[in-house]
């Protein structure tokens, strides 16, 4: 067991590498499976010393649900941004907000920041050094800026918290 775990420090990532290799070559021939397996074992071994322990996703089903929720939001966001962009520019009221974070680990925060950047008219600009605030640029600021903060916290942050169970 110890030998196996030493050979494959990150089994999930190895499988992902193999699958992507086969997808890139659009084949399932034996030669490519062997070559892909060599890469899938060698690359994680080389990268293992660089690894920082991160919290794992404990509820994969929640993660899948989150993925589809974000996908739907991205489509809605695109339409909203398209309408804003094609309308009169003077109607656009951009602004910054600082979103207080409950998450503490880097990986969940990265996920939240990426989601915020992908979705309706918001781009993350900076994370404060103490990881307590996420600075977000909003394309169309509602009259009450708390609305944006509430949206990010209730819709995305709570879902990520459930996913990582922290």
């Amino acid at each position, binding site marked *: 067991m110890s030998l196996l775990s030493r050979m494959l420090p990150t089994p999930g990532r190895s499988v992902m590498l193999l699958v992507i290799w086969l997808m890139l070559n659009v084949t399932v021939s034996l030669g490519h499976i062997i070559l892909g397996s060599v890469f899938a074992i060698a690359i994680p071994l080389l990268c293992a010393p660089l690894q920082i322990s991160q919290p794992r996703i404990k509820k994969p089903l929640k993660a899948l649900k989150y993925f589809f929720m974000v996908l739907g939001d*991205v489509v809605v966001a695109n339409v909203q941004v398209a309408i804003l962009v094609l309308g009169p520019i003077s109607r656009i009221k951009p602004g*910054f907000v600082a979103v207080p974070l409950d998450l503490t680990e880097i990986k969940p925060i990265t996920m939240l920041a990426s989601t915020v950047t992908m979705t309706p008219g918001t781009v993350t600009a900076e994370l404060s050094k103490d990881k307590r605030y996420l600075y977000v640029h909003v394309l169309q600021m509602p009259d009450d800026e708390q609305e944006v903060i509430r949206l990010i916290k209730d819709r995305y942050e709570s879902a990520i918290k459930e996913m990582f169970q922290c």
Partner: protein
Amino acid sequence: MNFWLELTVSALLMIGGIFVLVGSIGLFRLKDAYTRLHAPTKATTVGLGGILLSSVIYMSYLQGYVNVHALLITLFLVITAPVTAHILAKVAMHHKVKTMKSTQNEGLVDKAREQKAVDEEASSKNKGK
């Protein structure tokens, strides 16, 4: 080629094309670096997604097996797009790039640059300690 398949592929191509066009128009029309970031990052996700999806459907039909190259492009795009947008916004913030006149809460730029606490009172209390 099946009529419905053709219709789906062309509809996806149209939607994708329109969104990419809107993204470019946004890049041209918006006034400052931050707002300009919004148009391409958003419009290209659905725009390119639509084009790639139509490519997957069309090529799979032609070749007789599922073509996955386009799916991989989507995967890499989704991983890299938010990171680049974030880095661009961060650089803009730290270089104090000019913002649109109607921008609200501009004070937060300085606070983010100097890593001050968002609520000033809290930071002065911390200094007192």
